[in-house]
């Protein structure tokens, strides 16, 4: 079991709940969602409790995350996009915290389950669709008709654009999910090698240094990936929101 790299993704019921035959138990996944959400909330409240004119270290971290996301959203979607700032900020902070919390040994990684990332990606997709249609009406479909394309190529290009639009939630969710899943499996596999080699006496223990170094390097890489994937998810959300607000202009 210790060597099973898949074990970390198992969901365990902590508080069993059954609603008309549908299992709605409070699981370890739910627990870590709560931990991620309360962790970010508590951090931001604590960091801003000083309300310093000259920020303390933690306060400047909170301010940096705020300005990082607001800058990203404004660059991608313009000042109109700032209406979606709380949403993008929540997405980024929630995913980042879930990814980072998952880096603790024995902790569960919420974003390593496709259903979670798919739900978030579909939420973005539906918001983009609804906002795009409400703001622009049928002009929203100009998104699928790039300007400056010969009329003969038009059906082909429009078909490609429509398909790429519809597959957005897939790529959006699978990118985050697969990165977290693969990274955690890889770390676990290499960590398992340490234990396995350690069982072969002195030579094995000496050889176990190599997978140990690999595990350390991968752990560092995974911290980067944890941040990067949250960033990519938020960045793509900004770009999609821009499509909803300005479907004509690319």
């Amino acid at each position, binding site marked *: 079991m210790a060597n099973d790299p898949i074990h970390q993704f198992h969901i365990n019921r902590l508080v069993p709940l059954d609603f008309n035959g549908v299992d709605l138990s409070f699981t370890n996944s739910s627990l870590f969602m709560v931990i991620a959400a309360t962790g970010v909330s508590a951090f931001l409240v604590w960091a801003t409790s000083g309300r310093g004119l000259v920020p303390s270290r933690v306060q400047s971290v909170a301010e940096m995350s*705020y300005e990082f996301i607001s800058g990203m959203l404004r660059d991608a979607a313009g000042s109109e996009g700032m209406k979606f700032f709380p949403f993008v900020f929540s997405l980024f902070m929630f995913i980042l915290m879930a990814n980072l919390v998952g880096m603790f040994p024995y902790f569960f990684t919420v974003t390593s389950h496709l259903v979670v990332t798919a739900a978030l990606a579909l939420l973005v997709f539906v918001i983009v669709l609804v906002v795009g249609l409400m703001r622009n009406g049928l002009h929203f479909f100009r998104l699928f008709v790039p300007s400056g394309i010969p009329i003969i190529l038009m059906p082909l290009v429009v078909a490609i654009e429509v398909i790429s639009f519809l597959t957005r939630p897939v790529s959006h969710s699978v990118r985050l999910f697969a990165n977290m899943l693969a990274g955690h499996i890889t770390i676990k596999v290499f960590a398992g090698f340490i234990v396995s080699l350690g069982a072969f006496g002195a030579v094995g223990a000496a050889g176990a240094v190599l997978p140990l170094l690999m595990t350390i390097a991968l752990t560092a890489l995974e911290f980067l990936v944890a941040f990067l994937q949250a960033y990519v998810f938020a960045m793509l959300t900004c770009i999609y929101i821009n499509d909803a607000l300005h479907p004509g202009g690319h």
Partner: protein
Amino acid sequence: MTLTITLAGRAWASEGTATQEDSATVAETHAATEAAHGEAATFPPFDPAYFASQLLWLAITFGLFYWFMSRVAIPRIAGILEVRRDRISGDLDDAQRMRDEADAAHAAYEHELAAARARASSIAQESGDRARAQAEAERRKVEAGLAARLQEAEARIDAIRKKALAEVDAIASDTTAAIVKELVGATATKAEIAKAVGAAAKRDEAR
């Protein structure tokens, strides 16, 4: 779901554990693992048994998280940044205002200085002019006095000369009469003497 199950099965197999198809027949070593998990070896991220639970709790936690972020956390950070921006722009405005004031004071000083300099130079000019005019007037007065005295002196010299010249004729006549009397022994008449003296004088002038 067959797709995910076979996918999961392959992943399972590659990790060296029982696949779902094999699970019934494969070695007992895995039976314990299976039992611990309490269910068939579905790859956990694709196990639909927990989809509903995950979606529900994601909706609850993310919903509350979004609410908290938009109502509490973001306004707090935005407030802090706003206050700082206001403070900085206020300070910059103050600095600008003070610099404007300093510039105005400097301009006023320059203006005052220029005015004072102009006044000083005009006073100097004026007093110089006045002194020059005074000196000129003085000079004219002295010159006029000198010219008057010169004229007077010339007139007096003229008169003296005229008198002297007049006396020269008389002296010449007397001398001539005396010489004639001594040399010739006869007295000449006054008219003759005067005639001779006049002729001599004419001769002198001609020469």
